[in-house]
């Protein structure tokens, strides 16, 4: 049974270090926060759960003063934040709110101590006071259980240690509330333990911690209560000890999640890709699966579960440790990226802006770059053929663009993504590896991308569809594999791809 922790929430504001009272925030077209009330007490570790777009980051931005609520109040340390813009953020900062983000902001070439004091290095008579700096740094690190010389360069640290340095830096400012945004998402399980031990120490010092994560086993170790968000609302705050993972999943996904129209499976028997025992330390331990012609295979898993690494290993972009990759029944040994393209594979990266598009170039050039020969005559590009090929892709993938040569950087995310997929249609690829193709894409474009993927499968192409949005998997996939702890832990087949069960498998509850 879920025991509501509302009793704690009804404490007077005096007991809370940070509190939201009836906060609502509306962005164009989205209700990001809907009459949310939230409270966290000193020394408490509060887990914050919710799928993408549930309102977690808006809630955090309220607490840090980065956003002003349309209605409602935000108080830190008993005083309501006022004003807007940087003054408001400064006020929250002064009152002791700190966030440790996923993207690390350390300078690798500098020492741990220098990083801890980045930009405000202690000085004595105008000269950097290294002795004082390192003494204070050693103190701060020991509080987190990190035992190494502060003069060591950050470049030599493991990802978990870097994360701890980041946390130590935040602690130097004597914070009252520390917000950790998926601090373990890029870490292997053993590494994550170090971060969690540090979180416990912080809380023991009387600092409130908001811990955003979806790894239930971590949450169970460090948090007493968990707040679940959905559609901008705070659904409930539950006692972690008394709640079972399936029930938390139900709170995250809501009841409407239940049934989505399942896909009609038309996959053929021919195996186009056969992976066995693929290992890539520390992310992938032993991954084996088969992909059939005309099949859409979903790979589910949390952020940092190794989904991207898996696709990159198959494509030859990233070297793997062991295992075999067979294409059409032939062991290809070490795949090279361009060789994989020649075998009819296509890959769309997770970060569209950084790796997917050439923003200054037109839709046309971003499309035909995968196969210039098809739009050339005797080695010379034919403007007519480029236009035809581009129009074909625009029509088939429903790309909304003013013209074929409109710079792709000016298109919406959804339309950019369609072009990035479309370039492999132009290249005639028969196996498509799509890494989070719907990230940062609006609802309408998402539906179109689902339809496009089904269409590609119906044409006999095979698709691996990586997604962290569980609810879209039943809409697109013939089969879903769940990647957790470096292994494929569970398999779901259409029409029995149950969102709750997939989510529970991802976050690994018992």
């Amino acid at each position, binding site marked *: 049974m879920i025991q509501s922790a509302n009793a704690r929430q009804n404490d007077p504001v005096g007991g809370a270090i940070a509190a939201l009272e009836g906060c609502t925030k509306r962005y164009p077209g989205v209700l990001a926060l809907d009459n949310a009330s939230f409270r966290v007490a000193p020394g408490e570790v509060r887990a914050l759960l919710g799928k993408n777009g549930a309102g977690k980051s808006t809630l955090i931005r309220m607490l840090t003063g980065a956003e002003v609520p349309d209605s409602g109040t935000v108080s830190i340390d008993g005083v309501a934040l006022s004003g807007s813009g940087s003054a408001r953020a400064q006020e929250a900062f002064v009152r002791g709110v700190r966030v440790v983000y996923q993207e690390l902001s350390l300078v690798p070439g500098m020492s741990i101590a220098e990083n801890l004091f980045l930009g405000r290095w202690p000085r004595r008579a105008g000269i950097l006071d290294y002795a004082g700096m390192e003494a204070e740094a050693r103190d701060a690190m020991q509080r987190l259980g990190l035992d190494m010389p502060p003069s060591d360069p950050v470049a030599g640290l493991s990802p978990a240690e870097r994360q701890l340095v980041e946390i130590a830096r935040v602690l130097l400012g004597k914070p009252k509330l520390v917000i950790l945004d998926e601090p373990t998402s890029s870490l292997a399980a053993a590494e994550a333990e170090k971060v969690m031990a540090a979180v416990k120490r912080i809380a023991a010092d009387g600092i409130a911690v908001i811990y955003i994560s979806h790894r239930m086993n971590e949450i169970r170790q460090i948090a007493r209560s968990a707040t679940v968000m959905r559609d901008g609302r705070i659904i409930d705050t539950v006692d972690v000890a008394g709640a079972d993972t399936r029930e938390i999943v139900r709170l995250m996904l809501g009841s409407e999640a239940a049934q989505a129209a399942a896909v009609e499976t038309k996959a053929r028997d021919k195996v186009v890709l056969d992976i066995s025992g693929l290992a890539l330390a520390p992310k992938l331990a032993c991954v084996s699966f088969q992909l059939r012609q005309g099949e859409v295979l979903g790979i589910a898993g949390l952020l940092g579960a190794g989904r991207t690494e898996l696709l990159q290993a198959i494509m030859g*972009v990233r070297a793997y440790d062991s295992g075999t990759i067979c294409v059409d029944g032939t062991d290809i040994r070490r795949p090279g990226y361009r060789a994989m393209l020649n075998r009819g594979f296509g890959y769309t*990266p997770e970060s569209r802006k950084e790796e997917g598009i*050439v923003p*200054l170039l037109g839709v046309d050039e971003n499309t035909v*770059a995968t196969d210039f020969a098809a739009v050339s005559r005797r080695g010379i*590009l034919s403007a007519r053929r480029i236009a035809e090929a581009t129009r074909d892709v625009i029509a088939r993938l429903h790309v909304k663009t003013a*013209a*074929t040569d409109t710079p792709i950087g000016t298109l919406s995310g959804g339309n950019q993504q369609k072009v990035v997929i479309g370039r492999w249609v132009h290249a005639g690829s028969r196996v498509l590896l799509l890494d989070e193709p719907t990230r940062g894409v609006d609802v309408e474009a998402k539906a179109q991308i689902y339809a496009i993927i089904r269409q590609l499968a119906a044409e006999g192409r095979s698709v691996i569809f990586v997604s962290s949005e569980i609810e879209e998997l039943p809409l697109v996939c013939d089969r879903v594999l769940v990647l957790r702890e470096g292994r494929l832990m569970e398999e779901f087949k259409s029409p029995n791809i149950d969102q709750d069960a997939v989510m529970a498998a991802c976050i690994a509850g018992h």
Partner: protein
Amino acid sequence: MSNDQAVRTVPSGAPRRRGFSQHMNEISLFVAIVVLYVVFTTTANGFMSFNNQINILRDAATIGIAAWAATLIIISGEIDVSVGPMVAFISVALAYLLQWGVPTPLAFVLAIIIGAALGSIAGILRAYFDVPSFVGTLGLWSALRGTALFMTDALPVSIGRNDIVDMLDRPVLGVPPAAIIMLILFAVFAFVSRKTAFGRSVYAIGGNPQAAFLSGINVARIRVQLFAIAGAMAAVSGILLLSRLGSGNATAASGLEFDVIAAVVVGGTALSGGRGSMLGTLLGVLVITLIGNGLVLLGINPFFQQVVRGLIIVVAVLANIQAIKRGAARNKG
């Protein structure tokens, strides 16, 4: 950067405002050239004379031929600072080849091959060993000048009488062959940059190398090819230098690399890569050449000329960036 006109055929919802702002850069450079002409015509004696105009063309060729290749290199996000020593080295090497009795046409071909091979060293270092192109070409810059000086003791290497070499310096209908070669090569580079997979790949690599790689473009090979082409173009300049001076000269073409980079940058090509045009560089070459020529005719102290040139280059790029920013803001709003 402009695309092919014929491609623009899909029905358009939004009004198109690109035509003008896209060519803002070229238009403002053209205006700058007109202004330079007016200023120098009214102030400098003999600026508009036929002989001086021919001189301008000949000087433009020295910068231009190297600048066409440098434009592609800079669009791809790289840089080449080895041009001057490369030109001088090739002129020396060619002079020795001719002294040894190698048939002139064969010597020319060998010179171009040597240039391409030397250039590709920087390309290979960049493409396969991640040595920044600035460092690789800086190494070439020093080593080539040093080798040429060492081989010649800084003395000109005379080639004696050679009809083919002489012919390269004899005007055709008043126009020096160097200028003709420059314009032919300009047409070739403009075509390659817009109409071949190689040219478009260069833009893609400069705009986003990771995306270009993931699209299947052979990024490493294209980088090597770019530097090989730059070496070959420097060799062409070296051949023309030899024909103009009648000897190979290890001290020649000093500082040429800065004129070349200045011309490309004044021409609107972004040093950060992904953006630029051959037409812009052509206009940039003219601006740089006109300034150099005009200041000499005005009789300004040669030391002070360098100050004026430096100022004009910075102001030109500053004005260009402001114009592009204003254009972008207009397009947004």
